[in-house]
């Protein structure tokens, strides 16, 4: 555990810091902590990165009558002796945070694994009550837990709850209210060493737990299929195919619907109303509405992604997927769970960044999240196809295929590079995963969880996306000479054209130092979908879908690539495609990275992507120009 990972965070440093009493939920992973948290707080919750960490903690407000209580859902941990940044945060909050009461969750279907932490918590002296979860599952497995014995031995109140079904929640709330004023643990528990504690746990198990059978369960038989060498991989591929389809095929028509709805019902009426005031028309229609529209079109894909993530996690399949994909991800030095976000990235990078939440280790989340932008999203595919068909007609397919190979290679090498440099300590331990029981996901938890995440994305990414679109519009609307009026200037004579011409020489060593192309790359930062349209705009081509206009655009692109590369257009085009693959995908991806990992890492990511993209493009051009 590195010292920099230690947060030393207190509850009062959190975003909900106030005099409202704080209750922390503490437990091992997969004991139903998040489900209980959602039951207690509903949608009155928000995520917060604790100071000096990338570990995310959910905080929410529980209101019982007039009493307000802050509920803090701490990262799951097996022990207070932390081995990861997530666990360290829990340990730090327990040690230094001003918690008024802790609710320690014990899984009734797996008591033996939970009591070590419960004993440590009891020894820490923090007032605590025990919430016994998964009683329904324990019953199905023939396991009986004597709550009275458990409470007596731990010297703490024990309450049975089934958060998924809402059972026992009222009793728990009453207890919380009572024990905020009254010490739930009047007797001190002696502090034991590890062996004594394990012995104590075994003693409690012997007294409090009865098993009818301890045989191979249906869940074990399902696991044999879902984690098996051939069947497990086949099932994982089906799941991944489904996720990919849902985030592309299913989401695309919904995105188009929102786009056309915004155009028909908002942009068109506003356009008609503001036609007499060009600057206001431009600001509102091409700036604000276009910016909000860009953000809202991501709504379907983000909602679908978050729903899928919640279902996969809540059902218990995510851990099985991590087991199956572990070997596949080993070559990139990433854990098995990183496969899902990286594959989703080939559809769209934005939900892929959010999908890194499936990774329990904060360093692996960061590493995967920084690698995602190198996956060639479907928006980049449209540009590959357009360019490859113009310049490599017979070999267009091969060129596109090579770009995908490059994308995969970039992800692998970038992840390995980052592990050795910026994200040290993200070592990849050999596989060791505890598998949670299979559960039927509950609609309340899944929908609430997805809604909170979508809301968070809109709130935190919205500002960046809308501002960037407005800035690009403003640059395009601002003339560089008095000859033209604001909003009525040709692109070439706008501030945007001037910026593109200023940046353009940077790409001279890569063979595509032409302002039309540089400008397209600048607008490509807003969204890769607009690169082709931007070329059309820069070349004053009205409609790139129109065959005549398209032919004109094609010819001008050929001429300019030929001129800027000194007669090595093919090499320059390959260099351009390489740059397109490696540089920052879009502003929404940056916004998602800022939300997940903070501004520092989002900016670091941009700097690395731009540098790497430029170096690769220059190297590729200078090698290929000798042959092409």
């Amino acid at each position, binding site marked *: 555990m590195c010292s920099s990972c230690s947060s030393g965070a207190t509850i009062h440093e959190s975003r909900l810091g106030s005099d409202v009493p704080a209750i922390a939920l503490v437990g091992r992973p997969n004991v139903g902590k998040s489900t209980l948290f959602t039951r207690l707080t509903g949608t009155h919750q928000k995520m917060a990165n604790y100071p000096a960490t990338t570990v995310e903690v959910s905080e929410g407000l529980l209101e019982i009558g007039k009493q307000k209580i802050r509920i803090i859902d701490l990262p799951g941990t097996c022990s207070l002796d932390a081995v990861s940044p997530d666990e360290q945060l829990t340990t730090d909050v327990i040690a230094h945070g001003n918690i008024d009461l802790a609710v320690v969750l014990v899984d009734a279907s797996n008591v033996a694994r939970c009591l070590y932490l419960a004993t440590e918590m009891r020894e820490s002296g923090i007032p605590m009550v025990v919430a016994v979860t998964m009683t329904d599952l324990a019953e199905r497995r023939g396991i009986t837990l004597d709550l009275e014995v458990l409470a007596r031995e731990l010297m703490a109140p024990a309450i049975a709850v089934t958060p998924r079904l809402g059972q026992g929640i009222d009793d728990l709330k009453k207890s919380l209210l009572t024990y905020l004023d009254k010490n739930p643990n009047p007797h001190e528990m002696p502090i034991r060493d590890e062996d004594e504690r394990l012995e104590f746990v075994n003693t409690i198990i012997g007294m409090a737990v009865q098993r009818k059978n301890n045989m191979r369960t249906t869940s074990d038989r399902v696991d044999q299929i879902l984690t098996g*060498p051939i069947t497990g991989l086949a099932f994982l591929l089906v799941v991944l195919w489904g996720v990919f389809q849902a985030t592309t095929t299913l989401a695309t028509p919904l995105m188009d619907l929102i786009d056309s709805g915004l155009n028909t019902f908002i942009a068109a009426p506003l356009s008609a109303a503001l036609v007499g005031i060009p600057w206001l028309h431009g600001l509102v229609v091409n700036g604000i509405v276009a910016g909000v529209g860009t953000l809202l079109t991501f709504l379907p894909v983000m909602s679908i992604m978050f729903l899928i993530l919640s279902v996969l996690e809540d059902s218990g399949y995510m851990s099985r997927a991590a087991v199956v994909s*572990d070997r596949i991800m080993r070559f990139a030095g990433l854990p098995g769970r990183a496969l899902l976000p990286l594959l989703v990235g080939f559809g769209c990078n934005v939900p892929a960044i959010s999908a890194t939440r499936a990774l329990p280790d904060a360093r692996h989340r960061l590493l995967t999240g920084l690698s995602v932008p190198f996956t060639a999203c479907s928006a980049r595919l449209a540009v590959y196809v357009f360019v490859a068909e113009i310049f490599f007609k017979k070999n267009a397919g091969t060129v596109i295929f090579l770009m995908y190979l490059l994308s995969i290679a970039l992800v692998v090498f970038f992840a390995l590079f980052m592990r050795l440099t910026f994200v040290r300590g993200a070592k990849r331990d050999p596989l060791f995963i505890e598998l949670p029981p299979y559960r039927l996901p509950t609609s309340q938890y899944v929908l609430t969880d997805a809604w909170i995440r979508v809301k968070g994305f809109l709130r935190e990414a919205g500002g960046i996306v809308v501002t960037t679109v407005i800035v690009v519009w403003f640059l395009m609307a601002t003339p560089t000479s008095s000859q033209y009026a604001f909003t009525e200037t040709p692109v070439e004579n706008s501030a945007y054209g001037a910026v593109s011409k200023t940046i353009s020489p940077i790409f001279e060593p890569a063979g595509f130092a032409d302002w039309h192309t540089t400008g397209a790359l600048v607008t490509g930062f807003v969204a890769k979908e607009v690169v082709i349209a931007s070329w059309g705009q820069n070349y004053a081509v009205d409609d790139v879908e129109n065959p005549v206009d398209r032919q004109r655009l094609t010819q001008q692109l050929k001429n300019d690539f030929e001129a800027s590369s000194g007669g090595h257009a093919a090499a320059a085009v390959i260099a351009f495609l390489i740059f397109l693959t490696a540089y920052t995908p879009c502003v929404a991806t940056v916004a998602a990275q800022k939300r997940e990992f903070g501004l520092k890492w989002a900016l670091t990511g941009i700097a690395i992507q731009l540098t790497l993209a430029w170096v690769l493009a220059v190297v590729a051009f200078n090698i290929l120009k000798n042959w092409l």
Partner: protein
Amino acid sequence: MYFAGMLLNQLARGNTAIVLSFSDELFCQQLRRAGLRAGTEITVLSRTASRGYLLKIDDTRIAISRKVAADITCELIAA
């Protein structure tokens, strides 16, 4: 059947064994926290796609890689 001191990755599906020791201290803490310590009874439920094992320890199910399995010495008690 009785064999002493075999490695966990020598066990076949369905075998139950008692853990004797770990050779790698690195994983020792993690394994102990998951309930896998000397004296624990484990059953090999199946092989996994990652060429590892799915183990049953009391009511817990744990997936481990071959590398981890090769660090655990155990004593077969039922085949």
